[in-house]
């Protein structure tokens, strides 16, 4: 893994290379199956923003449980800028949206690109300052956490309302944004579990601090499984009960017709049933192997769910998705491994507050 630890210039080079490759794949080699790019973009944006949002939420709530891995989670924040850069490629794929050509003040290509890019870049900037303030234990970290969360909610709502929902325009659901930013948070927790699990393995499974993080994250994952089900069901029930053709079509296409039907039920299984049933017991919540497995289940569940949202409207390409996911996965790994060079030192180590606290605890 140490080989993944790159110098900043090499990291920048690899980032540009990856973005270039994704651009090449999407704009030249895979021009016909335009849904792939949206899948890649929506999943990875949710994952990186969610990871930072988790730290921000813990900071805003003055929760200390995440501290042992907050540095690891914050390592992903540069990826938000990468996602903002990649997003611009969507400008060449606007034909995927049925609203193209309509005169709507909100739904017009240039405004669409500008507002989303601006929000992503702002989100990156605030994440950058927040990460620095948190790791250097500056008093501004609380305010920045709230700013970041604010932008996170707007950004993920835009992912839902701007990127995915208009694929089936004029279908709409007011809860769509809520589901997306909740899911992004869910992904952040899954990432936290994987990072805590990895740290535990690196340190031969001894530190109780990390075990505690793992257990708390597992509890959160269990809670989010329930919350996900609650939001999913709220949306489903309102649409089912209203039984309006312009609303039900979206659900029916995904629920009743193969192959989306299988994926639809699969996503429910992976995002709710499996984590809920597995993590209900205290024993499983304390097992690093089981909890890490559940985190992978959640990651797969979100991918599956995004496929269900996108594929019936725009076709996907398997090989392109695999390539893009591999490239972005590698990029995330590089950023993570290079965190010591990219992030400032953890001032908590020499924080007077911490020292004083330790003295008192004896």
């Amino acid at each position, binding site marked *: 893994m140490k080989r993944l630890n790159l110098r900043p210039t090499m990291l920048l080079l690899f980032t540009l290379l990856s973005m270039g490759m994704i651009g090449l794949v999407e704009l030249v080699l895979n021009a016909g199956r335009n849904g792939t790019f949206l899948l890649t973009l929506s999943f990875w944006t949710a994952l990186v923003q969610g990871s930072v949002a988790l730290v921000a939420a813990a900071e805003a709530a003055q929760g200390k449980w995440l501290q042992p891995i907050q540095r690891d989670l914050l390592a992903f924040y540069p990826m938000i800028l990468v996602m903002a850069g990649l997003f611009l490629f969507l400008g060449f794929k606007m034909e995927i949206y049925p609203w193209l050509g309509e005169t*709507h003040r*909100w*739904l017009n290509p240039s405004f669409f690109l500008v507002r989303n890019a601006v929000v992503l870049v702002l989100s990156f900037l605030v994440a950058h300052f927040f990460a620095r303030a948190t790791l250097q234990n500056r008093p501004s970290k609380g305010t920045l956490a709230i700013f970041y969360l604010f932008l996170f*909610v707007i950004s993920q*709502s835009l992912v839902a*309302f701007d990127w995915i929902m208009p694929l089936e325009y*004029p279908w*709409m*659901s*007011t*809860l*769509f*944004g*809520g589901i997306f930013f909740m899911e992004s948070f869910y992904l952040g927790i899954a990432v936290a579990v994987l990072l805590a699990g990895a740290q535990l393995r690196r340190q031969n499974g001894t530190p109780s601090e990390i075990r505690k993080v793992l257990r708390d994250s597992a509890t959160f994952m269990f809670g989010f499984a*329930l*919350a996900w089900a*609650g*939001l999913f069901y*709220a*949306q489903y*029930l*309102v*649409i089912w*009960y*209203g039984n*309006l053709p312009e609303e039900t079509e979206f659900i029916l296409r995904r629920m009743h017709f193969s192959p989306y039907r299988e994926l639809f039920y699969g996503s429910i299984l992976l995002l709710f049933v499996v984590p809920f049933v597995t993590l209900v017991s205290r024993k499983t919540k304390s097992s690093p192997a089981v909890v890490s497995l559940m985190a992978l289940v959640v990651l797969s569940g979100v991918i599956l769910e995004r496929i269900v949202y996108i594929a019936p409207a725009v076709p996907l390409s398997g090989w392109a998705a695999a390539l893009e996911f591999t490239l972005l996965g590698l990029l995330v790994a590089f950023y993570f491994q290079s965190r010591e060079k990219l992030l400032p030192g953890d001032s908590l180590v020499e924080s007077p*507050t*911490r020292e*004083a*606290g330790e003295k*008192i605890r004896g």
Partner: protein
Amino acid sequence: MSMHFSVLRKPIIHGEKTLAQVTTDVARPLETRPTILWWVAFLTSFSVLVIGVAAVTYQIMTGIGTWGLNKTVGWAFDITNFVFWVGIGHAGTLISAILFLFRQRWRTSINRSAEAMTIFAVMCAGIFPLIHLGRPWLFFWIAPYPNMRGPLWVNFRSPLLWDFFAISTYFTISLVFWYIGLMPDMATLRDRAKSKIKKAVYAFMSFGWDGSTRTWQRYETVYLLLAALATPLVLSVHSIVSMDFATSVIPGWHSTIFPPYFVAGAVFSGFAMVLTLMIIARKVLNYEEYITIDHIEKMCKIVLVTGGIVALSYLIEIFMAWYSVNEYERFVFLNRALGPYAWAFWTMITCNVLIPQLLWFKKIRRSLVIVFIISIFVNIGMWFERFVIIVTSLHRDFLPSSWVMYKPTIIEIATLAGSFGLFFTCFLLFVRFIPFIAIGEVKGVLNYGKNK
């Protein structure tokens, strides 16, 4: 003995209190004669309750034609009051269950009174659908039970029936949860009681609590299980209440965001009511060292967050009405903002969106007078929110020939006032007869942040 304070964690309970002192402080209002202030408050709220009882009796005897409803606006004041009170009832169980699971130890000073508030609020809420039945003495027809009315059976597809199940379950669990938490304190009062009657009553209510390790262990297990049970209920009750509206196809009601938005609104209004009550109670009962300014600040933060979710929901609803290009949805939101009930809409926006923004400032969060005023505004705003949702969506029907205005009658206003009377009467009785603060739980956090 000298005391050190942790630089990492602030003490939850202020002052150098001993365990015995906590018991004495909390038991004092129960063991002394009520003050003049208490009598004034009690008699006022009881009088308002009597007015409410008179109004309810009159409308039951005469029929719900005494209300201002008409053929277009079939739901108005009653359902507004119902949703309002169910919302108020959300904070108690949230504090007790969710904050318990999140290990928020500051909850211990306020959980008992907030839970009591939940129970009284749900009682108030229950009155309105009951009267709305028209023949409340047949209320048991809502419950599915083997009957001799042939194929007549409750409609399981009706969200109103879901309400019945959701609220009755919520009430039962909240009551059990509250009572379980009360048992050790009842035993404390039993042991302190001087009169035989008091001793017997508290002994009965404490269910033979002996304070042994085994009893405490079992108590903690039950408490944890009930907290886990109550948590989904906190989220489900108002989701189901929101379904009364969202499952219909009326513009302004049929919205998928309603369930989480109603839950956030309920917690928002519930905490505002807790703040209103706590700010008065801590002063009157001399509990300033137990319910500290830090407690108030933390509750303000919850009000700010949930208020933010409510504001976001308003924004999304308005945005979606515009985005959808659905003329009926657009009309509803334009009518809300600019129509004949615009005053109610703007009251709602001012109280729920604008005024709570003041809570971003630490100085304001720590100013009791300002927080008290803000909490009152939020309560008013949340009542208006329900009024706006219900009346503005109904009074402009699809057919312009059915367009009407709604005005509450004096009977409806008296019933609403009566529900407040019931709420405050119950709360004042609670203050006199049951420990306002969970003695056992507060003792557990007495040394939190202090190193003795």
